């Protein structure tokens, strides 16, 4: 079953800043709760993602790659494919993200199309769109926090002075930033940004987003899964794949 979806979100950071971050899989992967990056090799990466809808959980494992990256139009395309860790379902996805900047903010338009086999294929389009939307919302929130923190760090670096406050509601946990001026701190703290850096709004993803399973139901308005049909699991997993940040490796 092939499905296409469109989603859109905005981050409060100029597009010139948002663009390189979006290309940096290592920095962006933690923004997706439940996702764990395994390896990055140039444009190729692999990993897993775990999602939860109430008691239902699904994990996917596979690989993805940046098929196309156009810095002029700030468009990137990721192709991903993978397999359920505990099932026979498979999924493949193609995600295209377009960045548009306006007034120091960036709007990201995501178009995704994907194919699911196995139980998830029973899910209705509405459920998939719902789940995907939530996922992207969550991702957007975390990404915004990440970008804002990056910006803060860049500013600190420019001033060459340690900043003790990281701005509103952030950075209780992240060790270095306050103390180490300039580049060093920015580098080190950039990598596992989520824990302290993530804003309360995204606090659910805060602890270790890589390990924390995405609990979609925490977000308002869940998808309709009739009857505990296998659908739910696969669909959700698919959505995650769609974001293409998972590495899906063929077994």
């Amino acid at each position, binding site marked *: 079953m092939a499905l296409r979806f469109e989603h859109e979100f905005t981050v409060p950071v100029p597009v010139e800043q948002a663009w390189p971050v979006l290309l940096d899989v290592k920095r962006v992967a933690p923004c997706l709760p439940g996702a764990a990056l395994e390896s990055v090799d140039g444009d190729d990466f692999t990993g897993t993602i775990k999602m939860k809808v*109430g008691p239902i959980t699904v994990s996917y494992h596979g690989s993805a790659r940046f098929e196309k990256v156009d810095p002029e139009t700030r468009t990137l395309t990721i192709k991903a494919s993978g397999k359920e860790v505990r099932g026979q379902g498979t999924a493949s996805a193609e995600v295209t993200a377009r960045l548009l900047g306006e007034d120091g903010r960036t709007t990201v338009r995501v178009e995704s199309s994907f194919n699911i086999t196995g139980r998830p294929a029973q899910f209705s389009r509405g459920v998939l769109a719902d789940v995907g939307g939530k996922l992207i919302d969550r991702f957007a929130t975390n990404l915004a926090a990440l970008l804002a923190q990056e910006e803060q760090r860049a500013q600190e670096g420019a001033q060459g002075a340690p900043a003790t406050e990281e701005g509103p509601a952030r950075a209780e946990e992240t060790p270095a930033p306050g103390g180490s001026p300039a580049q060093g701190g920015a580098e080190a703290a950039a990598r596992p940004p989520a824990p302290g850096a993530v804003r309360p709004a995204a606090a659910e993803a805060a602890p270790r987003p890589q390990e924390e399973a995405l609990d979609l139901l925490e977000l*308002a*308005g*869940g998808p309709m899964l009739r009857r505990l049909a296998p659908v739910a699991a696969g669909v959700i997993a698919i959505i995650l794949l769609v974001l293409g940040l998972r590495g899906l490796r063929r077994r």
Partner: protein
Amino acid sequence: MIPASFGYFRPASVDEAVATLSEAGEDAKVLAGGQSLLPLLRLRLAFPAALVDVGRIPELRGIEDRGDHLYIGATTTHHEVMNSPLVKEHCPLLAQATATVADPAVRHRGTFGGSLAHADPAGDLPSVALALGAELVLRSPSGERAVPASGFFVDYLETAMEPAEILVGVRVPKLGPGWGFHYEKFQRTAQAWATVGVAAAVRRSNGTIEEARIGLTNMGPTPVRAAAAEEALRGVEIGDDAALRAAADRADEGTEPPADLHAQPDYRRHLARVLTRRAVLAAAHRA
């Protein structure tokens, strides 16, 4: 298929259950009647690392009359609830709705608390709990708390319960004289889930509807109250067909009915309106 392997614990008391759950971690699930959870395991949709079976804990079972409300233990089975003289007398809506749940086999094992904790919006009991204004009593390592039904159902299959919390009982208020109840359920086959269901509680004074409480089954990711319809029903004469219809037509306002194999959203909206009218009328006549 058979479930993936899991650890199994059978605590003898609520405190032990809470402790076991808390130790077992996030991947543990509480097992009551298993009528919702075990299918998930068998379909290999859920993979809890451990099941904490609370089915043999005596204090979780039973129905008590506590004055202004009934206290129903979480592991009281559907069969016990629907046949309880207390429930039939003081909360007939609950008895009637429970009798429509699945089939006798399921009703003999499935539990009231389990059904609420599972929080499937297509289940009959969550919307009834919502309509009646029930309160859910939860226990965790840090103590006990009560959450009203209106705040309990957070999302599809998701509740306000913390990871190490157990639902121990439900307080179902007795609405008192003047109230009539009816649960109207539309389903394609006898033991199927409701395509849409309406739980109606109506307070009537002479020939006028003073107040209505309407819970909708399967009209969203959680059970919902038909708030607009409830408001529109105030002061409506039971004999005033046009006004009743107009009010019932507002039943689907604010809802996001799902699309699935059984129905599309527009059909569900239609069902909600029609069933609300029928349920309200039936409830009003019983008041």
